[in-house]
């Protein structure tokens, strides 16, 4: 177990190194020039050259990358071009907002997914089942920004139940979390459904039924724990997807998380921030998967034995 974790950690480090290298290369190769961006339109060539030297952009690519890597190893993600502050600090300041949104969104997904997935599995072929299967398709086919705008229009503009945008109170979380949760819930429901169908057909469930246990008890105490594994794997993947995918929802709802930070940085060609957020997102993807792999044997002894 410890060896496995160690090996995965080394893999994680290598993957992050690769992500850093590719992102660096891509950003370097793009036609956007951060020095000119900072200097402004009317700046002279001399000013632009000075800024370029100041930022170290006049160095060869490999030297720049090496300097950047040295920084990362010391826990230093560099300084933002536009805001002149430490990127690590900027990201840390924005991270809680995104984590709150992520926790709320995933909670909505899991709760809705469990409820509808279980009902669909129990009433296989019935109305709820068909609605759930269809809804999961609608969920992946719906553009996030349209659903966000739709919820805004109905619940903020028309009904006035929730604020339009911003951050601070519990009411602010509802619409963004609902946007993420409703869209993702269908896939959870699908997973729960197919896992539950597998489990419900097994002998021990039949035994439980033969013993005369109530169906609520059978489902919740006997079947569900064994159907939880794919859901945990899914949450792991979800956590990863979330970090990189939160840009749109944060943009629509004015949510001050790392998605918004990234979006502002992209518009200002603020490369250190873009690099930083990309790395944090990649880290989330890898850690999400790792977390699922670590938790799985903890809740399922069958995997531990392998």
């Amino acid at each position, binding site marked *: 177990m410890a060896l496995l974790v160690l090996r995965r950690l080394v893999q994680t480090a290598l*993957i*992050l190194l*690769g*992500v850093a290298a*590719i992102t660096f290369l*891509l*950003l370097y190769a*793009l*036609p*956007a020039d951060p020095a000119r961006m900072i200097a402004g339109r009317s700046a002279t060539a001399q000013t632009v050259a000075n800024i370029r030297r100041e930022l170290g952009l006049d160095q060869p690519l490999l030297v720049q990358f090496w300097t950047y890597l040295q920084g990362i190893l010391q826990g230093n993600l560099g300084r933002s071009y536009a805001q002149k502050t430490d990127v690590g600090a900027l990201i840390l300041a924005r991270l809680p907002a995104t984590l709150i949104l992520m926790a709320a969104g995933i909670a909505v997904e899991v709760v809705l997914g469990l409820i509808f997935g279980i009902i669909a599995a129990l009433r296989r072929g019935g109305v709820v089942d068909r609605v759930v299967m*269809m809804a999961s*398709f*609608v969920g*992946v*086919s*719906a*553009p*996030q*920004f*349209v659903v966000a*705008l*739709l919820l805004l*229009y109905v619940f903020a*503009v028309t009904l006035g139940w929730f604020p339009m945008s911003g951050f601070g109170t519990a009411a602010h979380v509802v619409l963004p979390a609902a946007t993420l949760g409703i869209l993702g819930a269908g*896939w959870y429901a*699908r*997973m729960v*459904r*197919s896992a539950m169908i597998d489990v419900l057909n097994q002998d021990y469930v039949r035994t439980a039924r033969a013993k005369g246990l109530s169906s609520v008890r059978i489902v919740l105490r006997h079947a569900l724990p064994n159907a939880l594994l*794919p859901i945990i794997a899914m949450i792991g993947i979800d956590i*990863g*997807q979330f*970090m*990189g*995918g939160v*840009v*749109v929802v944060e*943009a629509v709802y004015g949510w001050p998380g790392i998605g918004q930070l*990234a*979006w502002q940085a*992209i*518009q200002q*060609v603020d490369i250190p921030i*873009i690099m930083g*957020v*990309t790395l944090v*997102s*990649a880290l*989330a*993807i*890898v850690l999400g998967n790792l977390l699922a792999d670590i938790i799985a044997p903890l809740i399922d002894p069958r995997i531990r034995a392998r």
Partner: protein
Amino acid sequence: MRVLKSMLRQPSAMFGLIVVALVVLLALGAPLIAPYSPDDQMFDGLSLEGAPLPPSAQFLLGTDTLGRDLFSRLLFGARTSLIIGLVANGIAVGIGLMVGILSGYLRGPIGGLLMRFTDLMMAFPALLLAIVLAALLHPSLWIVAMVIALVNWVQVARIVYTETRGLVERDFILAERSLGAGHLRILFVHILPHLMPTAIVWGTLGIATTVLLEATLSFLGIGVQPPQPSWGNIIFESQSYFQAAPWLVFFPGAIILLTALSFNLVGDALRDILDPTQRGRG
């Protein structure tokens, strides 16, 4: 033919097929069907206060903030979405097939390297990468298609890799090899045809992803640039106005949803038909 017949038996697949056919027809026939030019800023297309007009007999789906007919813009937007869907997704499936088949077939360091690279790409936050690339390159229809292709090939490569690995182990490949068939013959004549169902399924499902991604990029203002209409940039152009003119968001939104949904339904039905072992699974 067999595939088509099985599809028509499932109501959801049939629904998807009809909508897809409809969208394709509308896109092809846009110049004939559109009541107005998509770029025509009509002086009677705005109210006296200069606000966009709600749906009416004259303007079926209303007008946008510049007094252009929304219905006509959506028709021409369908062309944009489908072109990007086909081009971007065609390239993505092409790259995915190449990388997947090579890394699955070549055992040596090259195959391993290709697969590690694919693993690496899996750890990339895809949407973020697409947004960064699209924003920092000068956006145009083709750039958007390239960016989407660059992001979307990874999943295909992963699946093709697994399937190729399985195929290589099979006896008929061994038989071919002992008969003296070269690598190229084995790859293209014996392995590739077995991967076609996968390519077709992902080719279809991928169009849904592509349509959504294009809409998202255009909605952020870094996709297809106005005045060329795309479903995403129609919403981008009117989002600050959407409280007063919600139809400008909801009609394009509904069409994006319907199109993506239909491609997903068709793709899923194709998967069921072409690969019966997957039937009924999540």
